[in-house]
C-alpha cells in the first residue's frame, strides 16, 4: 500500500446533458493509483472507463461535467482547479495516449512539429534545441531513421508507428501519470505487443504511474498490477491482477473472463453458464468423396505501384532502388475449402488476406491463377458480371463493421430483404416479410426489432442483421471478414456461437478472415496463415496453433497477451 496516492478519484459521478435528459455515464467511482503503479480499467463499451479518464484530464465534451466527487492529483483538487492550471498540468504532469493512433495525430502537420508543439508549450526546451529534442523523443520510442521520420506526416507512417509518435508526444514532457486509452485497438497482435512492451519499458524506466484502459481483460492482466472492472458506469470489482484471474468475485467479471477466447476455452464455454443453447441437429453430411467447394490455385493479385507507395520510397530513400512496376498483394496462393468446412485465414494487416477474400467474393479481378467453385471456374468472370450469374447467391459475405455495412436508411427488415429482392425469386411483400421473419428467428433477432433502423439497434443486433442478410439466399460459402472485430467480447461470444450453429444446421462453408488466432481456433477446422501475400503455413487448426511449424506462426502466437495463469 502506498502512503499517498498520486491520483485519487473519490465518489466520481460524471453527467452528460443530452436531448433526452441527463445521462450519468460514471457513477460513484472510487479509484486510486500510487506512484509507479500500473492500473488496468477494464470494461465493455459504455462502461464509462474512457469517460472516467477524460474527467481526470478535464477534457470532457462540452455536454459532460463532473457532478459529484473529487479528483485529486498529487494534492491538487482537479475538479476545483482553474482551467489554466489544469491545462499546464496536461502533458506535463499527466498525459494520455489514445486508440486509433492515426486519427489521434494532426493529419496535416509533420509529426516532428507536433512533438515540438508540446515541448514548446511546456517550456521543456529552448527553440534552438527543439528539433533535436523532438528527434531524441522519436529515438526513445524506437522509431528508426528518426531524423527522416521527423518530417513525415501521419499518413506516411504505419498504425504502429503513429502510436509510437503519440507515445512520444505523451511522454515528451516527462509526466508522472500516463493514461493509455485502449492504445492497441486496431493494431496487429505483434504491433500490439511491441507497443505495450515499449510503454511498459518507458514507464518503468521513468517510474511513471500508468492507467491502462481496455476491453481486453487478458491484456490488462498481462501488463497491470491492479485491475478495476467497470460495468454501466460503476466499479464492480477491484483487485490485483492475479487475484482477479484466479478468483473473480463478481458475476460480471466471471462472465467477461469466460467470454474472452483463450487457449483452452471452447466455443460453448464462452457463454455464461445456463445460457448455452442446445446443440442443434447437425445435418448428416453424406460422407462421399467429392470435389472441394472452393479450390484456389496459384492466385496472384498485383497492384500497380504508384501514388503513395512510390512517393513514399521517393521521400524516404535518397535514390529509390529500381522497383518492380507492380506490387504483389497476393503472391501465388493455393488452398481448398470443402463442403461444410470452415477455414480460417489469418495474418496481420497488409498480408493480403482481405485481397484474397475480395477475389474469392469476385469483387475484384485476379491477376493470375484460378478460382474453382463447385467444379466451375469462376475466376474469369468479371466482377461486374458476377452479380448476374447464379454463383452470386451461392457466395455471400459478412462484413467487418456491422454498423458501416448497413444502409442507415434501411430498416433491419429491408436490409435482410435486399438480396431476396435482387435475386431471391420471392414475389410479394408478404412472402418476403415472411422469409425475413424466418431469417430473423434463425439468427436470434427478435422479430419486433425488424422495423428498426440500424442506429436503434445494438452492436450485436446489427451483427445479427448482417448475418441474416448473408444467409438469406442459402449460400454454400460465406466469407466472414472479421465479423466480430468491432464487438464487445460478450457479444462476440454469442455471435461466434450463432455462426457455428448456423453452419451446422445449414451445412455452409466459411472462409473466416481474422487476425485473432484465439477466435479462429474456436470456429475453424483448418487454418491458413498468410504473410506478405504468401501462405506460410496451413493445416488443421489444432496442429497449426499448438505445434506451429513456421517461425512466423510462432511469433504470432507469442504476441497474444498471456495473462498470469
Amino acid at each position, binding site marked *: 500500500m502506498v502512503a499517498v496516492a498520486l491520483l485519487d478519484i473519490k465518489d466520481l459521478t460524471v453527467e452528460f446533458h443530452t436531448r433526452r435528459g441527463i445521462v450519468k455515464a460514471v457513477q460513484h467511482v472510487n479509484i486510486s493509483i500510487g506512484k509507479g503503479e500500473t492500473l488496468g480499467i477494464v470494461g465493455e463499451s459504455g462502461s464509462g472507463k474512457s469517460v472516467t479518464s477524460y474527467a481526470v484530464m478535464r477534457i470532457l465534451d462540452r455536454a459532460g461535467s463532473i457532478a459529484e466527487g473529487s479528483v485529486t492529483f498529487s494534492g491538487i483538487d482537479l475538479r476545483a482547479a482553474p482551467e489554466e492550471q489544469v491545462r499546464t498540468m496536461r502533458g506535463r504532469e499527466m498525459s*494520455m495516449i489514445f486508440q*486509433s493512433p492515426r486519427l489521434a495525430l494532426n*493529419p496535416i*502537420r509533420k509529426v516532428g512539429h507536433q512533438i515540438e*508543439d508540446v515541448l514548446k508549450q511546456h517550456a521543456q526546451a529552448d527553440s534552438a534545441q527543439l528539433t533535436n529534442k523532438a528527434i531524441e523523443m522519436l529515438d526513445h520510442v524506437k522509431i528508426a531513421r528518426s531524423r527522416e521520420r521527423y518530417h513525415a506526416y501521419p*499518413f506516411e507512417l504505419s498504425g504502429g508507428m503513429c502510436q509510437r509518435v503519440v507515445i512520444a508526444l505523451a511522454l515528451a514532457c516527462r509526466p508522472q501519470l500516463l493514461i493509455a486509452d485502449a492504445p492497441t485497438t486496431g493494431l496487429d497482435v505483434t504491433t500490439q505487443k511491441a507497443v505495450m512492451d515499449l510503454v511498459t519499458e518507458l514507464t518503468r524506466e521513468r517510474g511513471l504511474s500508468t492507467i491502462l484502459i481496455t476491453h481486453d481483460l487478458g491484456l490488462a492482466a498481462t501488463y497491470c498490477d491492479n485491475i478495476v472492472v467497470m460495468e454501466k458506469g460503476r466499479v464492480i470489482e477491484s483487485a490485483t491482477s492475479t487475484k482477479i484471474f484466479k478468483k473473480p468475485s463478481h458475476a460480471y467479471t466471471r462472465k467477461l473472463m469466460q467470454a474472452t477466447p483463450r487457449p483452452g476455452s471452447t466455443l460453448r464455454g464462452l457463454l455464461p453458464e445456463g445460457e448455452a443453447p442446445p446443440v442443434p441437429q447437425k445435418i448428416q453430411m453424406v460422407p462421399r468423396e467429392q470435389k472441394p467447394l472452393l479450390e484456389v490455385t496459384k492466385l496472384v493479385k498485383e497492384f500497380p505501384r504508384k501514388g503513395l507507395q512510390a512517393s513514399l520510397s521517393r521521400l524516404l530513400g535518397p535514390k529509390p532502388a529500381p522497383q518492380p512496376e507492380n506490387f504483389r498483394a497476393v503472391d501465388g496462393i493455393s488452398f481448398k475449402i470443402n463442403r461444410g468446412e470452415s477455414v480460417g485465414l489469418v495474418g496481420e494487416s497488409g498480408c493480403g488476406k482481405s485481397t484474397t477474400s475480395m477475389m474469392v467474393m469476385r469483387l475484384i479481378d485476379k491477376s493470375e491463377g484460378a478460382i474453382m467453385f463447385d467444379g466451375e471456374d469462376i475466376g474469369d468472370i468479371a466482377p461486374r458480371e458476377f452479380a448476374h450469374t447464379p454463383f452470386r447467391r451461392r457466395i455471400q459475405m459478412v462484413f467487418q463493421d456491422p454498423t458501416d455495412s448497413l444502409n442507415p436508411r434501411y430498416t433491419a427488415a429491408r436490409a435482410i430483404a435486399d438480396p431476396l429482392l435482387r435475386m431471391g425469386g420471392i414475389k410479394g411483400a408478404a412472402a418476403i416479410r415472411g422469409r425475413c421473419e424466418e431469417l430473423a428467428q434463425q439468427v436470434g433477432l427478435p422479430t419486433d426489432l425488424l422495423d428498426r433502423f440500424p442506429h436503434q439497434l445494438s452492436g450485436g443486433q446489427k451483427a445479427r442483421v448482417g448475418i441474416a442478410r448473408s444467409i438469406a439466399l442459402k449460400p454454400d460459402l460465406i466469407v466472414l471478414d472479421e465479423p466480430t472485430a468491432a464487438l464487445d467480447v460478450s457479444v462476440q461470444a454469442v455471435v461466434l456461437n450463432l455462426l457455428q450453429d448456423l453452419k451446422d444446421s445449414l451445412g455452409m462453408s466459411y472462409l473466416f478472415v481474422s487476425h485473432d488466432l484465439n477466435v479462429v481456433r474456436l470456429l475453424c477446422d483448418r487454418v491458413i496463415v498468410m504473410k506478405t501475400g504468401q501462405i506460410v503455413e496451413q493445416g488443421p487448426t489444432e496442429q497449426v496453433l499448438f505445434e506451429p511449424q513456421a517461425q512466423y506462426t510462432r511469433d504470432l502466437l507469442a504476441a497474444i497477451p498471456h495473462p498470469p495463469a
Partner: protein
Amino acid sequence: MLSVILKRLLLAVPTLIGVVVVTFLLTRALPGDPAAYFAGPAATKQAIEQVRAQLGLDKPLPVQFVRYVNDLAHGDLGNSLTTGQPVLAELRSRLPASAELTLLGLILSMSIAIPLGILAATKPGSIVDHVCRIVTTAGVSLPVFFTGLILVYVFYYLLGWAPAPLGRLDVFFSAPRTVTGFYLIDSLLAGKFDLFRAALAQLVLPALTLAIFSLAPIARMTRASMLSVLASDFVRTARASGLTRYTVVITYAFRNAMLPVITTLGMVFSFLLGANVLVEKVFAWPGIGSYAVEALIASDFAPVQGFVLTMAVMYVILNLIIDLLYGVVDPRVRIDA
C-alpha cells in the same frame, strides 16, 4: 509542381473547346435577329438583308464557325455591334473593374465571416453563434440591389461620407496608367495617393454590398467545418497535451478546417465575378457582368461569346489555384497530384 500545373492546363483544353462550340451554337439559337436590330425599326427587308450580309450572318453555320475560330486563334474576339469597339479591348478594361470589386468584396467578407465562423464553432449555442446565424441569414436574404441602395441612401445621401455611386472614379480624377488594371494597385504604383483614396472611396460601398451578400456561405462553411474538426480525435490529443486554446483552435483545428472553406471561397468568387450585374448597375460600375447582359439584350453575339469564354478561362485558372492551395494546406493532396 510545374508539371502538375502544365498537366492541369492541358486538361482544360477540351473544356475550353467545348465552351467555344457551345457558346457559338447557343448565341445562334438565341431568339432575336441582330440584323433586324441593327438595321433599325424602320428598315426595309432589303436593308435588313444587306446588314445580314455585312455581318456575315447569311452564311451557313459551319462557315460562320470556322471564321469565328479563325479570328479567335488570331486573338480577335470580334467587334461589339452596339459600341463598335473590339470586344477584347472592352473586356480588358472591364474585367479588372469586376475583378477588383469582387476581390475586395471577398476579402472584406472573409475577414468578417471566417473569424465569426470560428468563434461560433468554438462556442456553439452561445450568443456569438446566434449573432453569426442572424447576421449571415440577414445578409443572404437581402437582395444585393436592395442592400446596395440602402448603403447609397445612408452613406451618400444622408451622411455624405461616400462619393456619388458613379463608377470607378470621381469625374475630377483621371485613371492611372494601366499596369494591372486594378486602380488601387496602379495608383500606388504611380505614387498617386490621392488617386488611391479616391478609387478606394468609390470601391467601399459596392464591395461592402458584395461582402454582406457573401458572408453567409463562408461563415456557415467555416462554422460547420470547424465543428467537425473540433470534435475529431487529434484535437482531443492536442488538448490532452496541454496546448493552449489558441494553438488548438488555430494551428490544429482551423488549418484542417480550411479545405472546405477554400472550396467555398472559389465558388463564391467565380459566382460573384459574373453575377454581380445588379451591384454594377446600382453603382454604375463598368464591369463585365453588365456589359454581357447589355450585349445579350441586343443580340450582340461577339461580346457574349467573349464574355462566356473569359469566364470559362477564369474558372479554369481559379480551379487550378484552388487545387494548388489545397496542396499547400494538405500534404495528402500533394501526393495524389
